[in-house]
């Protein structure tokens, strides 16, 4: 068996990659993919903790996170498509009609 801590380290690495991706990338789609990476890092943590405690709770939570992520995908992609239709770009740096 692979020790639990390996899964946790992997999930922490995935979460950090996701968070850095959100901060560093400028393409709205890739930012969104990074967010999904963060959610899935949490999912990995949930199932590995569920295994540690020998509970089903953690695994059930993952179902909810997946379902919510799908709802987010639907709304997020719709927004990205709408932006692309009117601006022909999804670069977040080019969103300057609102001055920061």
């Amino acid at each position, binding site marked *: 068996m692979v020790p639990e801590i390996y899964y946790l380290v992997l999930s922490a690495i995935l979460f950090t990659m996701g968070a850095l991706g959100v901060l560093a990338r400028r393409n709205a789609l890739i930012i969104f993919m990074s967010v999904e990476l963060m959610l899935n890092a949490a999912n990995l943590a949930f199932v590995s903790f569920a295994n540690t405690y020998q509970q089903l709770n953690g695994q059930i939570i993952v179902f909810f996170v*997946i379902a919510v992520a*799908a709802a987010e995908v*639907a709304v997020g992609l719709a927004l990205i498509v709408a932006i692309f239709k009117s601006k022909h770009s999804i670069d977040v740096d080019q969103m300057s009609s609102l001055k920061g």
Partner: protein
Amino acid sequence: MLFEYIAIATLIVLAVIVALIAIGLGELFGPKKKMEEKSMPYESGMTPYGPGTRRMPVRFYLIAVLFILFDIEVVFFLPWAIVFRQLGLFGLIEMAVFIAILLVGYIYAWKKGALEWE
């Protein structure tokens, strides 16, 4: 511990060896003729043209989003189906409520014309 993985490791090694033998024998004994048709992407199909990444109509995208939404909800059916007998009538009502909520979304998408192709 690691002992459990030996079977899988053996399988992987065997699969690689078998594949290598098959390719190697073909290289060794097979006839080699070089001609133009042989080097085309699809030897007996249409010649591909244009860039590889073509734009898709937005309609595909709408269908895809609807598919994601209704598809993912199936994850809740699976655990429900497994413990269906223990849950009894209560489980049935609970799932009926869940499906009713999905149905609201479905009727909405339908009436809004999201399912129309043209």
